[in-house]
């Protein structure tokens, strides 16, 4: 700690992110999820349990809302009072949106959650003291608290079952908050491999567990500042910009928005964009056939 450091780097410590800020380089991890492809099958969620050592809490604790599914599949119905859901259901995989301006980060008293240089909202388990303020301030409620000490709880990881635990991922004890990490352990491996080869991570070098499992390939994960990446292309095609709280295409036509009467609407949107957390996950609207 030194005051001279503070004064020397004054401008660096006084900018607001992501609006009017320099973008992340060389990595900004982001996702896009096509809800038209998503079938709500839960494979991603189970894959997440397998990859990230999530505790199975059991019926009683689940009833008390202590479930640990970092990725949860939400199922919505039409709300127009029809007798039968004859347009099917709406599925939405919801996990940490890795906000660029995350509401959870500012409120943590010990700085256990931070914005990493590659645009992930990190969670430092051994720093966390369990004030749960982050979850209180999360609009998506996608943080999960270790209400009990699952490693020592009966039948969570009994003998043999514990051999499945992924050694690349910490097993969390009681009293710490956890959440989706964008499979940071996989990202780290990919970055290290790329570094050893003197290059940047290519698109496809790293897949998140949910993405890898997804039977309909609804989930895409990649580097949003790499023009070669699928995620970049999707965000571009959908005209969704990371640092906007309202996309230009969603504004009135006079402000550059897309007319719904014209060639059609683009499907990309982000949940609760208007709250300005600048989430890193873009969803593509589910489509329903109009001719039937």
């Amino acid at each position, binding site marked *: *700690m*030194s*005051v001279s*450091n*503070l004064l020397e*780097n004054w401008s*660096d*410590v*006084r*900018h*607001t*992110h*992501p*609006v009017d800020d320099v973008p992340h380089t060389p990595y900004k991890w982001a996702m896009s999820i096509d809800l038209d492809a998503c079938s709500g099958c839960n494979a991603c969620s189970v894959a997440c349990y397998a990859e990230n050592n999530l505790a199975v809490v059991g019926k009683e604790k689940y009833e008390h809302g202590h479930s640990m599914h970092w990725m949860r599949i939400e199922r919505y119905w039409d709300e127009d009072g029809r007798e039968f859901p004859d347009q099917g259901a709406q599925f939405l995989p919801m996990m940490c949106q890795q906000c*660029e*301006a*995350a*509401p*959870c*980060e*500012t*409120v943590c008293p010990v*700085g256990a959650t*931070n*914005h*990493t*240089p590659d645009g992930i909202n990190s969670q430092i388990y051994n720093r966390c003291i369990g004030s749960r303020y982050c979850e209180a301030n999360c609009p998506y409620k996608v943080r999960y608290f270790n209400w009990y000490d699952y490693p020592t709880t009966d039948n969570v990881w009994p003998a043999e079952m514990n051999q499945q635990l992924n050694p690349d991922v910490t097993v969390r004890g009681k009293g710490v908050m956890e959440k989706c990490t964008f499979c940071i352990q996989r990202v780290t491996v990919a970055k290290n491999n790329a570094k050893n080869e003197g290059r940047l991570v290519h698109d496809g070098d790293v897949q998140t567990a949910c993405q890898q499992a997804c039977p309909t390939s609804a989930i895409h994960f990649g580097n949003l500042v790499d023009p070669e990446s699928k995620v970049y292309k999707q965000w571009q095609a959908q005209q969704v910009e990371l640092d906007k709280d309202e996309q230009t295409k969603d504004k009135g036509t006079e402000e550059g928005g897309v007319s719904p009467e014209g060639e059609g609407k683009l499907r990309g949107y982000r949940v609760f964009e208007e709250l300005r957390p*600048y989430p890193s996950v873009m969803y593509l609207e589910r489509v329903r056939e109009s001719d039937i």
Partner: protein
Amino acid sequence: MSKRHLLALFSNFDEAEAAVRELRGLSVKGFNADKDMIVKSPIEHPEVEEFLGDKPVYVQWFTLGGALAGGLLAFFLISGAQANFFSQIKGGKPVVPFPPNFVLTYEMFILGGVYITVLGFLICAGLPARRSPLYSAKVSEDQIGILVQADEAASSTLKAIFTKHQALEIQEEAGK
């Protein structure tokens, strides 16, 4: 030449005031009213300061120093810490954000002010103090005490003044 202490106790404040005024007017060798006289009272009498003459209080300077030091320390400590350890963005806010730092600066301003004020009080009031040679528990009850120290020679003059102003009791330090 040795000095002796005398403690006179009064129950009537006006009489005590009169005695003090007379002592201040007195010019006896071996007794300087400004230095050698201490008025003790069970309550805070603002009048005492008036008739004892202008005696400065320096506590407020401690207060000023403490408050400023606290505030500055807070701001630079916090901003410095943020610029080093927390050179990471949080919630999209600047690494050194002003509103939170001002809140903490404000709190430390007060904290420094209060702490140093109390320190100043102890220094200025000379606390913790050694107990004076003559003391009566009556002083903490309902009586005004005037403690003087004077040469042996002057003590009889003083005693006379006390008696004149209806001192209830005059205690005398045992001779040496």
